[in-house]
C-alpha cells in the first residue's frame, strides 16, 4: 500500500524518540484504514485543518458506552477512514497483561479494525483506534466471549483506573488494584449505561506519588496515605550520606512543609507538620517508611480543562481505612456523591464545577461527612457567611 507521500509526518519520525507516525506506517503496510489515516493526517498537517467528525449513534446493542463514533469529513478522498470509530476496552487493574492476552487483543483487532492501538489513553482504557459501524457487533462478540468488556464513554462512569499498587510497589498504602476492581464490578451499570449529566471518573493511587494523576483528573480520587510518624532507620540515613547524597539540599530543603531537619548525622521529622507528600520517602526508600496505620484520603472534583478550566481535587474524607472489608464503605460514599451530583448538576457540569457553584457544605450534608480542617482548600475570599438555621441550634 503506502500510496501517500507524507513529508510533514516524516518530520515526526526524526530524533531519538518513538514515533506514532512510524507505527502507523507499519500498520499501513497491511491495512487500508491505517494507510488512509496516514493520508488524511498528512492533509491535516498541510492544510492546518482537522477532518474528523465526532459523535453520533454508534455502539453495541444494550450498551451506551465504550464506542466513540468518528467519521472522516472526506470519505470520498479517504474511504478507508470514512468510519473510524474508537473502541475502548476495560483494562485490567494496574494495566497488567500477559503477552498471550495482548496477542489475543491484537489478533482480533487486526481482523476488524485498523490495527492501531493507544496503550493506554488518558482514560485508562485500552483504546483501539479505527473500526467501522458494521464491524462493531462482531468485534464486541469476539472480545466479550474472551472476557474483554467495553469501557466507559459519554455521560457515564468512566472505567476506573489505578496504579500498580501493592502488586509491584512498596509505597502502596492501599490495595489500589483491589479497590479499582471492586469499584468496576460494583458500578457496571453506571459504566455501560450513560445516565449521568456528564462523565464521572474514579482513579485510585496507592500513595501521594499518584502515578495515575488522580488528584488532577478524577472526579473521585482515592489516594493512599497513613497515620502516625514516618519510620526512620538512621543507619540507612548514614549510608545514603556516605553514598554521596546531599541530604540537606535533596531532602530537607525540598520538604514542602519544612518539617524535617538534618544535623549531619540524623534526620528528625516533625510529623505533625508533615503533609505526607512522599518526596522524602521516595528519595530515601531504605531509610524512611510510612507510618504503620494505612488508609486513604478521598478527594473530589478535579478535571482537565474541557468546557471550562481545569480543577484540582478537594479533600472530602482525610482518612478512611481501606482494607477489604472497608471497600463497601467506599462504594457507599461514592454512590452518595454521585446521587448529589446527578440531582443537582446541569448537563455537561462536572462534580468539581458543581461544588464551585454550590459550595462544599451541601455536598458534605448530602454524603454525611462532618466538616474537618483538612477540607479547607484555601482561605475564604469573601467576607460574607450564610448561617443555616441548624448552626444556631448547636
Amino acid at each position, binding site marked *: 500500500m503506502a500510496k501517500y507521500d507524507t513529508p510533514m509526518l516524516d518530520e515526526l519520525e526524526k530524533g531519538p524518540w518513538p514515533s506514532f507516525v512510524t507505527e502507523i506506517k507499519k500498520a499501513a503496510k497491511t491495512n487500508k484504514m491505517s494507510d488512509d489515516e496516514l493520508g488524511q493526517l498528512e492533509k491535516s498537517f498541510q492544510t492546518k485543518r482537522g477532518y474528523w467528525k465526532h*459523535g*453520533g*449513534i454508534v*455502539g453495541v*446493542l*444494550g*450498551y*451506551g*458506552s465504550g464506542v*466513540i*463514533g468518528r467519521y472522516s469529513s472526506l470519505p470520498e478522498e479517504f474511504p478507508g477512514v470514512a468510519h473510524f470509530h474508537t473502541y475502548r476496552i476495560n483494562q485490567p487493574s494496574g494495566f497488567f497483561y500477559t503477552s498471550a492476552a495482548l496477542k489475543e487483543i491484537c489478533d482480533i483487532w487486526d481482523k476488524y479494525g485498523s490495527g492501531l492501538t493507544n496503550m493506554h489513553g488518558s482514560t485508562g482504557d485500552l483504546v483501539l483506534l479505527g473500526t467501522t*459501524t*458494521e464491524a462493531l*457487533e462482531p468485534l464486541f462478540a469476539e472480545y466479550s466471549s474472551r472476557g474483554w468488556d467495553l469501557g466507559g*464513554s*459519554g*455521560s*457515564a462512569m468512566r472505567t476506573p483506573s489505578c496504579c500498580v499498587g501493592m502488586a509491584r510497589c512498596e509505597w502502596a498504602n492501599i490495595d489500589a488494584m483491589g479497590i479499582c476492581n471492586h469499584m468496576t464490578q460494583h458500578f457496571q451499570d453506571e459504566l455501560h*449505561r*450513560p*445516565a449521568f*449529566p*456528564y462523565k464521572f471518573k474514579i482513579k485510585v493511587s496507592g500513595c501521594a506519588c499518584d502515578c495515575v494523576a488522580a488528584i488532577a483528573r478524577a472526579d473521585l480520587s482515592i489516594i493512599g496515605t497513613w497515620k502516625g510518624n514516618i519510620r526512620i532507620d538512621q543507619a540507612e540515613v548514614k549510608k545514603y550520606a556516605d553514598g554521596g547524597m546531599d541530604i540537606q539540599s535533596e531532602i530537607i530543603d525540598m520538604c514542602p512543609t519544612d518539617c524535617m531537619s538534618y544535623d549531619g548525622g540524623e534526620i528528625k521529622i516533625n510529623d505533625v507538620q508533615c503533609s505526607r507528600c512522599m518526596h522524602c520517602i521516595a528519595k530515601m526508600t531504605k531509610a524512611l517508611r510510612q507510618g504503620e496505620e494505612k488508609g486513604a484520603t478521598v478527594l473530589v472534583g478535579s478535571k482537565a480543562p*474541557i*468546557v471550562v478550566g481545569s480543577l484540582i481535587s478537594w479533600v472530602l474524607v482525610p482518612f478512611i481505612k481501606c482494607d477489604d472489608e472497608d471497600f463497601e464503605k467506599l462504594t457507599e460514599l461514592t454512590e452518595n456523591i454521585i446521587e448529589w451530583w*446527578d440531582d443537582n448538576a446541569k*448537563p*455537561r457540569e462536572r462534580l468539581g464545577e458543581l461544588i464551585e457553584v454550590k459550595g462544599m457544605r451541601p455536598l458534605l450534608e448530602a454524603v454525611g461527612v462532618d466538616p474537618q480542617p483538612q477540607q479547607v482548600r484555601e482561605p475564604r475570599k469573601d467576607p460574607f457567611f450564610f448561617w443555616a438555621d441548624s448552626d444556631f441550634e448547636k
Partner: protein
Amino acid sequence: MEQKEIQDEIFAYLEKMKGKKKLKEKDVIKKIMADHAELDKNTVKTALREMINVGKIMYAYGGGASSVEIPSEEYLKEKGLI
C-alpha cells in the same frame, strides 16, 4: 401499572419529544414518575433498561453528553432487529 404500560408511556414520551429536546435517561424517569406517583425510580428504570436491551430505544451521544432516543430504521437494520 404493568411494565408494558410503563414502556408504552416511555416510548410515547420519547416520540413526542423527538427533535425538540435531547432527553437524558433521568429526564424520562422523572417524567414518568411525575405522571404516576405510585411508581418508584427502580421500576421505571428497569422498564427503560429492558427497552434498551432489545433495541426499542437506544443511547445516543452528541456534544459531550448522552441521551436516550428512538432508534432510526437504519440503526435497527444494522443491528438485525428489522
